[in-house]
């Protein structure tokens, strides 16, 4: 009786292990297939960008260029202001990120740690407006920019991205849960000024949340498209996104330079992603989690 039982268990254990191996191989095969599908657009884009015009329009298409060339990249650099677009994107994203961090931190701290009349109402207003998409109020915002004479200026492009309702919300959540009241009160009793409490306690204790918010704000501002499209008329202040959309009309079906432009467009972000992969994914996850 006993013997039969143990025999059966070793047998089933072996079967289980085999099953597990098969399952793991199948899982990996599916994941690899999915990864290939996810990567095809990148691979195809890079491959095309190195092909001479004659190879681009061949049938069947070849994955690896026979005579790889830099001509397409050369054409992009000589016929467009791509370097300028890059710096424009950088300026827009950095300024916007700094503004979002500053405004979110200040407002988040005050909503988390101060009681004053109208606090809940103001905070409700911030949460409620977070749902309204920018695209829904860009028309009156454009009229406001006309009144300020900010059409076709850097200020005008950055204006809608200096404050983020979600950022205020995120920082409030973080500060109210991660920084105990006793900490702040103790500093007050020791005679610390309100400003130094903010600078020496709140700021250093919020770096992780600020990293998350900063990543989010940077990606959002870097990818801005519809608003720059409306407000920027001179290509001197185009960002990368707008510049590339403009190439599209310039080169129309000339896919070589177009793909070279696209590769150059994504390179800065890919490089940043390779170096900061873990932080970026964690930060994105954190900002989602807290929301």
């Amino acid at each position: 009786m006993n013997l039969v039982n143990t025999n059966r268990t070793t047998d089933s254990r072996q079967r289980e292990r085999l099953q597990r191996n098969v399952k793991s191989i199948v899982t990996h095969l599916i994941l690899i297939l999915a990864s290939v599908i996810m990567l095809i657009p990148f691979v195809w884009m890079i491959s095309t960008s190195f092909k001479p015009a004659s190879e681009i329009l061949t049938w069947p298409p070849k994955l690896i260029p026979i005579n790889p060339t830099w001509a397409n990249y050369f054409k992009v650099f000589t016929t467009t202001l791509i370097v300028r677009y890059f710096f424009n994107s950088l300026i827009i994203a950095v300024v916007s990120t700094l503004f979002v961090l500053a405004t979110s931190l200040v407002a988040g701290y005050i909503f988390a740690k101060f009681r004053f009349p109208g606090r809940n109402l103001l905070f409700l207003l911030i949460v409620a407006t977070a749902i309204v998409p920018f695209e829904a109020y860009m028309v009156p915002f454009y009229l406001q920019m006309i009144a300020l004479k900010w059409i076709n200026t850097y200020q005008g492009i950055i204006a809608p991205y200096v404050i983020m309702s979600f950022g205020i919300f995120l920082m409030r959540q973080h500060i109210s849960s991660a920084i105990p009241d006793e900490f702040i009160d103790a500093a007050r009793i020791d005679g610390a000024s309100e400003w130094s409490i903010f600078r020496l306690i709140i700021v250093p204790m919020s770096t992780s949340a600020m990293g998350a918010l900063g990543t989010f704000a940077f990606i959002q501002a870097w990818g801005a498209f519809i608003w720059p499209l409306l407000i920027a008329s001179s290509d001197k202040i185009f960002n990368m996104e707008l510049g590339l959309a403009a190439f599209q009309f310039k080169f129309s079906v000339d896919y070589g330079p177009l793909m070279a432009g696209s590769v150059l467009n994504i390179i800065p972000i890919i490089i940043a992603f390779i170096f900061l992969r873990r932080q970026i994914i964690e930060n994105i996850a954190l900002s989602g989690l807290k929301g």
Partner: protein
Amino acid sequence: MSVSKTRDMSGNVVGSRRLLNRLVKFLGKNPQRRAKYLFCYVMLTPVMLLFGYIRVYPIVRTFILSFYKYDMMSKIHPFIGLLNYQALLHDSDFIQAIQNTTIYAFATVILSIILSLPLAIVLAGKIRFSPLYQTIFFLPFITPMVAMAVAWKWIYDPTYGILNYFLSIFHISAVGWLVYPATALWAIIAMSVWKVIGYNMVLFLVGIKNIPATYYEAATLDGANGLNLFRHITFPLLRPMTLFVLVTSMINAYNVFTQIYVMTLGSQSAPGSAVRVLVFEIYNNAFSFFKMGYASAEAVVLTMIVLVLTILQFRYFRTGEE
């Protein structure tokens, strides 16, 4: 317009005077308390003014503008009541835009959740190379939209695109994916799902990792298998995260514009082939035809749709939780 502006300003003045009176009473004589609240108001005021100018004022003005015939080029902007909204009901372009945007939003959100949730479940387990897979799936989300839309346009190219090449292996004849609005909509949905899968996956991963392992251990001891674990533990405990993913992706999906602009408005596509979506309609009416009042009415409808969907999602997903 000027009427509403002055009313708005006088309202502010009355409000701030009342606030000031309350403030003086509130601050009292204690110097430390005074310093504390001085800091609070001095710091918060500029942020809230900025917030008012950038968010509240344009949102309120969108609603106001929707009752006016507002042409940016003309000096007079007459009040026309609900005429803009009445005209919307008979505007076939607008109705088509609502249909297209709704198909796009529901298809993108549902497909991306259906695909990203199993991925997250698999990658949350003890699987080799999990970080590598995560990176690959996350890559499209982090890359800028215009570049990827251009790349996909090339993939969908009717004569030299690799999608048609791939299909030709199975003897399927070439399709002009982006040429016809019907296929273009689904081609763009596919591209957008590809773009957003990694983001949803990362959020679901966080949600799954926050579920205490003891729940699974207890359930496994009770003889629950994989599917049971998913139905009775993973899925219910992922509810808050699913709600978050649903709400944010639905709002984003209703605002789709960039990829549509890049993929269907190029020189290649025929003039009638643009996939009409709500933001495109707003953009077109406001900045090509200068019908800003009319565009604002469309924007109000967009806001209402997003608002109602968000409320419905909260209603549905909050039940049974807490």
